[in-house]
């Protein structure tokens, strides 16, 4: 299960909350250095899956590894090897930019001699050099988002998980954010990103569609489009693909319901 070329491996991963099955036997692999997009409507199970991979939710069933570490037994080691950024900005708004960075370098145990260099790097990356002493709460959404990402990858993790990182951010900032993601992937970092912006899905190397807790399609965006949307082939958009896949899934599920009636 731990071939050196894979960053994330998941087999039959399952999470139940009481009777509700949030994630239903999902399996996939993410290669090292890949940008893997995890798509689906709200409540489809994207965040639940990510949380299981990050070690903050215990799976109800199945198995998996992240950076070669078992998600069932070695969550704490995983946490030292991943970066995680969620849809909510995870910064302390009453702290300054610098204090936020210092705080996260503290909890990620960045060695003292590297601290300054990493801080410089984050400021450079997020374009926040002039705002070092500004309170984070006063920054605009795009800046907060880049600072969040910077703080999440201070410890240079090989795998990063981004849970709807661009929700509520203007298009230009989203664009800049994706430039950052490409830069990271170029350095060999594996990026696992969830989104419900269809245009963002196009930027990914490979995408997986999750709907009602089930994985309904997976592959490179272009391949998926040619494969699933042969009929209406004039400039197919991601959105068309998404809608048709979900409709197809519902069609498959419906006959059984009718039989029951």
């Amino acid at each position, binding site marked *: 299960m731990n071939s050196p070329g894979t960053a994330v491996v998941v087999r039959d991963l399952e999470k139940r909350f009481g009777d509700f099955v949030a994630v239903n036997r999902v399996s996939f692999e993410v290669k090292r250095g890949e940008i893997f997009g995890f798509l689906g409507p709200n409540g489809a199970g994207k965040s639940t899956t990510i949380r299981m991979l*990050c*070690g*903050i*939710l*215990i799976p109800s069933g199945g198995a998996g590894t992240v950076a070669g570490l078992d998600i069932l037994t070695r969550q*704490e*080691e995983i*946490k*030292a090897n*991943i970066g*995680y*950024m*969620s849809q*909510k*900005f*995870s*910064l*302390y*708004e*009453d*702290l300054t930019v610098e*204090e936020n960075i*210092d*705080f*996260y370098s*503290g*909890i*990620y*145990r960045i060695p003292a001699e590297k601290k300054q260099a990493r801080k410089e790097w984050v400021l450079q990356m997020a374009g926040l050099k002039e705002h070092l002493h500004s309170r984070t709460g006063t920054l605009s959404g795009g800046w907060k988002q880049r600072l969040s990402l910077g703080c*999440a990858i201070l410890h240079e993790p090989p795998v990063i998980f981004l849970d709807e990182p661009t929700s509520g951010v203007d298009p230009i900032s989203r664009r800049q954010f994706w430039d950052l993601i490409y830069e990271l992937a170029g350095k060999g970092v594996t990026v696992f990103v969830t989104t419900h912006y269809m245009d963002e899905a196009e930027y990914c190397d490979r995408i997986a569609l999750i709907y009602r807790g089930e994985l309904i399609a997976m592959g490179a965006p272009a391949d998926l489009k040619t494969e699933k949307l042969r009929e209406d082939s004039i400039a197919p958009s991601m959105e068309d693909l998404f809608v048709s896949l979900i409709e197809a899934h519902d069609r498959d599920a419906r006959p059984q319901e009718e039989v029951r009636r």
Partner: protein
Amino acid sequence: MLVKEFIHIFRDPKMKAVIFLVPVIQSMIFGYAVTTDVKHVATAVFDLDNSQASRELVARFVRSGYFDVVARVQNEGQVRVLLDRGRARAVLRFNQGFEREMLAGRTARLQVLLDGADSNSAGIVLEYSARIAAEFSRTVLIERSARLAGAFRPPGGVDLQARAWFNENLESRNFYVPGVIAILVMLITLMLTSMAVVREKEVGTMEQILVTPITPGEFIAGKTLPFALIGFVDVIVITAIAVFWFEVPIRGNLLLLFLATALYLMTTLGIGLFISTISQTQQQAMMSTFFFYMPAILLSGFIFPIANMPESIQWLTYLNPLRYFLIVIRGIFLKGIGISVLWPQLLALAVMGLLTLRAAAGRFHKTMA
């Protein structure tokens, strides 16, 4: 983590005020207000005799310092009105013939009417009145015997010489001010810690903290040490006010007081953190804090002596860290007793502190799962 919590607190000027100014103001107010000494009781005199003897007795009441004559009334109706409206809390009533009865060698009657709504104060006033009246009749007796028999010496009676140890003047302030230290510090540390974790949950930073390799121990330490330090500073500030402003004697060892404070803070911080881990919002944390805080004060012996409570409730007070700390802090301030006497309380605080902190750490781990 540590540095961050300090920044959180000090960045907010309102927070700073809450932490340092409020204890100062509250201990000042409580120092003056929280007293059960009854002084300057508003008293009305209803003197139908208006004789030398009755006036002499009224003068004795006034001289005692416990009674202030606020009105002189002429009839029953006025007595009622004064007591109803609360303008007088005691009425001294002399019937006609008070002096005559006395001179005739019979028992003269003085009636004291009290506003018994506040039963505690009324009881105390009653006791004062009885004492003054008894003294009066004794001097009258001595004078009379002297007049009758010249060199006659009155028979020796029993003279009760009560001395209150540890608090010679029975100043209730000396008893309550050390207690105020305990309850104020409890309030502040409880509030700060119970908010600390919940705030992170509300803002959403908790999730981020959970995906970092921070250990529960580090997290708990980061969330308690700053508040422990603040608690200490508050104890020192209020102790200084108590000693230098209110002149409450401090007879015991200050180091022992600090040791006890450290143990006590462990329990309040542990409880605060525990509340924090079971609450989802700051409002919930606030409610839970008060749900704990009110009974903790009422069942601590701060106001109502534990010995007077029903036995089942007395057992309940053994779970209350405030109970132990009050004994310790009052013991150190007033009695000057040391560890050889106070060790059971210190031990109880230490055990409770460790248990609550452990419980909080345990709860914290579960929320990660």
